């Protein structure tokens, strides 16, 4: 990502929904890195491109509507242009929406930078009956204009030739006065010029030509059937992800376990038990924890790719808007929260589709309350072993209910602190078939992104918890003499009122790393490897009210270290990550306290 190595630098700019990122990936081969640019508050995609005659650094700028606009992304683009000399700016337009996109070109032309115009989705424009004359545009604007389709890789060769020519150009800075003039510029003048251009080069159809979208919208946005269809689609997708993801995760876990047992254990055997434990159960298990998420993240983004690129995500926003508006959110947050019921980590990564920071932060705050599959495992064990079968189903149902209520309460409480400054004015793009190549590329990019940004944090956390359970040297793991045992008894004044004893507190320390290891942790704490025996031991020690309180706390406090890690990396704010952790701990305590003390009051304990 070293800018100095490249001999030239170009940037890609366009409105949202023009397929700009698809073009960027098609040209750069999907080797882009998400990187932070000095002085900017959002991540940009940066990729190197080797061409005949030199190497290019390509930057994908956020989609903007108006170079003089007031949104965060628009300010970011202005800032970038002011600070970064460029050889070339590639302007990406949606060929079927030139009626409103040409004005952005007119604004950009005033920058004095060399421009190339890429009329993307030309295939779709033809399908909708829009006829564009690139030559006429080229003559009128005195710029190279290319008709392309990034998705089907048409016209990319000609564009690449333009990029090769850019290598010969000097880097051109933007004068601050040019940007200032655009910021103050008159919209109506631009619109008039754009209308004249449109007249000269584009023939629009009398009637909107996309019958597929019309027909699908008739059913998918149907006043009565739209919502049930949406929920069915979500349930199906969810089932699909986890029907594939859970076994994949299992196999990966088995494989890593095998590597640990057969390869590393004998290798580390000569070391003192403390050090071999630290390396195997601390460091190696930490790496395994990060890797365990990779299959689910991959599958999640395949599914997310289908929902988003097909155009259905914005339909979901339309359908759920009545409900979500009251919570300060929109329908996309709802889709992501539902996805969170599988796993919170990819759901939080997925909030990147929302460009408003307030909306995104609020969504990140509520997603951790979605009862994910790892927590479900703990609850299934406890309900089956500690409650009568007739109660078990009711307990499970109440946990799901509380999961929803916690999210709604959080949204209501915090919507004032994270207001969305963007008006809900979303485009509803025509339905499209995503290509497999596109989706695989994107899912792979997300997996790499997660691995890159969170592994250190997660590995550090797993090692820290292992140390807590195994220090001072020589103690039985997670026993009362260990650091976590000490923490368990020290926290009793705080946790006894919610029915959580010292043993259970240690289990919560395990649960902070990942809910997948809570049961394993309990097995260590009670020294019972067998599930039935562990259930028996728990029944001996705690009442049903205590068990229920423990489940409530487990449901609501931090889902896992990986979730905290992605909240931190996605919000780019430690304070926000801390707020998320502290608020969920507080809510967990309050809910457990009310339920446990209520149960005691009514004599159910």
């Amino acid at each position, binding site marked *: 990502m070293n800018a100095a190595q490249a001999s030239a630098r170009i940037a890609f700019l366009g409105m949202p929904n023009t397929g700009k990122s698809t073009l960027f990936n098609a040209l750069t081969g999907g080797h882009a890195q998400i990187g932070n640019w000095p002085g900017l508050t959002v991540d940009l995609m940066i990729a190197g491109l080797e061409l005949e005659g030199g190497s290019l650094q390509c930057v994908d700028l956020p989609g903007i*509507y*108006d170079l003089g*606009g007031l949104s965060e992304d628009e300010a970011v683009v202005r800032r970038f242009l002011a600070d970064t000399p460029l050889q070339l700016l590639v302007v990406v337009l949606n060929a079927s929406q030139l009626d*409103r996109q040409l004005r952005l070109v007119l604004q950009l032309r005033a920058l004095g930078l060399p421009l190339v115009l890429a009329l993307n989705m030309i295939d779709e424009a033809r399908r909708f009956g829009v006829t564009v004359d690139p030559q006429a545009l080229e003559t009128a604007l005195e710029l190279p204009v290319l008709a392309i389709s990034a998705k089907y890789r048409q016209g990319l060769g000609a564009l690449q030739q333009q990029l090769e020519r850019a290598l010969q150009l000097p880097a051109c800075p933007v004068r601050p006065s040019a940007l200032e003039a655009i910021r103050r510029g008159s*919209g109506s003048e631009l*619109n008039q010029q754009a209308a004249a251009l449109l007249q000269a080069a584009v023939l629009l159809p009398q009637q909107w030509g996309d019958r597929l979208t019309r027909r699908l919208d008739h059913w998918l946005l149907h006043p009565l059937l739209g919502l049930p269809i949406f929920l069915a689609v979500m349930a199906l997708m969810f089932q699909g992800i986890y029907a594939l993801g859970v076994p994949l995760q299992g196999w990966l876990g088995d494989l890593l376990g095998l590597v640990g047992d057969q390869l590393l254990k004998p290798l580390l055997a000569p070391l003192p038990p403390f050090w071999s434990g630290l390396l195997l159960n601390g460091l190696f298990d930490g790496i395994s924890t990060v890797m365990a998420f990779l299959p689910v993240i991959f599958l999640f983004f395949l599914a997310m790719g289908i929902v988003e690129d097909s155009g259905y995500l914005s339909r979901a926003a339309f359908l759920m808007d009545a409900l979500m508006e009251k919570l300060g959110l929109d329908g996309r947050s709802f889709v992501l929260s539902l996805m969170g019921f599988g796993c919170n980590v990819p759901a939080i990564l997925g909030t990147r589709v929302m460009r408003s920071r307030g909306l995104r932060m609020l969504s990140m705050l509520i997603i951790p309350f979605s009862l994910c599959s790892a927590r479900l495992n703990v609850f299934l064990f406890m309900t089956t072993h500690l409650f009568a079968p007739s109660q078990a189903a009711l307990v499970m149902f109440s946990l799901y209910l509380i999961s929803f209520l916690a999210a709604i309460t959080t949204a209501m409480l915090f919507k004032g602190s994270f207001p969305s400054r963007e*008006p*809900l004015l979303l*485009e509803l793009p025509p339905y499209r078939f995503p290509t497999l190549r596109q989706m695989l590329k994107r899912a792979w990019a997300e997996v790499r992104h997660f691995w890159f940004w969170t592994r250190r944090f997660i590995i550090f956390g797993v090692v820290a918890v292992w140390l807590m359970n195994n220090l001072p040297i020589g103690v039985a793991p997670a026993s009362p003499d260990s650091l976590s045992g000490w923490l368990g008894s020290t926290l009793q004044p705080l946790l006894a009122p919610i029915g959580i004893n010292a043993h259970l507190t240690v289990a919560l320390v395990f649960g902070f790393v990942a809910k997948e290891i809570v049961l394993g942790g309990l097995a260590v704490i009670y020294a019972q490897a067998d599930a039935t025996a562990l259930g028996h031991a728990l029944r001996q020690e705690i009442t049903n009210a205590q068990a229920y309180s423990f489940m409530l706390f487990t449901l609501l406090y931090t889902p896992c270290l990986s979730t905290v890690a992605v909240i931190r990396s996605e919000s780019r704010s430690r304070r926000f990550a801390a707020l998320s952790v502290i608020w969920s701990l507080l809510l967990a305590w309050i809910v457990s306290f009310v339920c446990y003390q209520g149960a005691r009051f009514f004599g159910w304990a």
Partner: protein
Amino acid sequence: MSPAASVVPATAGVDADEARDTAPLSLGQLAAGSRATILSLAADRRLLQRFDALGLRPGQQVEVLRRGWLSGILHLRVGMTELMLRRTGALAILVLPLAR
């Protein structure tokens, strides 16, 4: 930014025949399936810019394709673009309904 509203006057003329028998309404009051010409927009600068960029500007024709339940979010078509707009936003847009 100050919430001071500014009003953009209509620049394009509205066809007199089509406009007969109808009075200006807010876009939020339009029923699904109806079409109208935008007369003016009243909003802060940020929202006005976004309206403009998506094609919602005086003189443009809009069609209300459907409305969502309860809060009545609008599914609109302007030029070659379809969008959804919350009712609160739609109330800021004054339109002249077109005869069907």
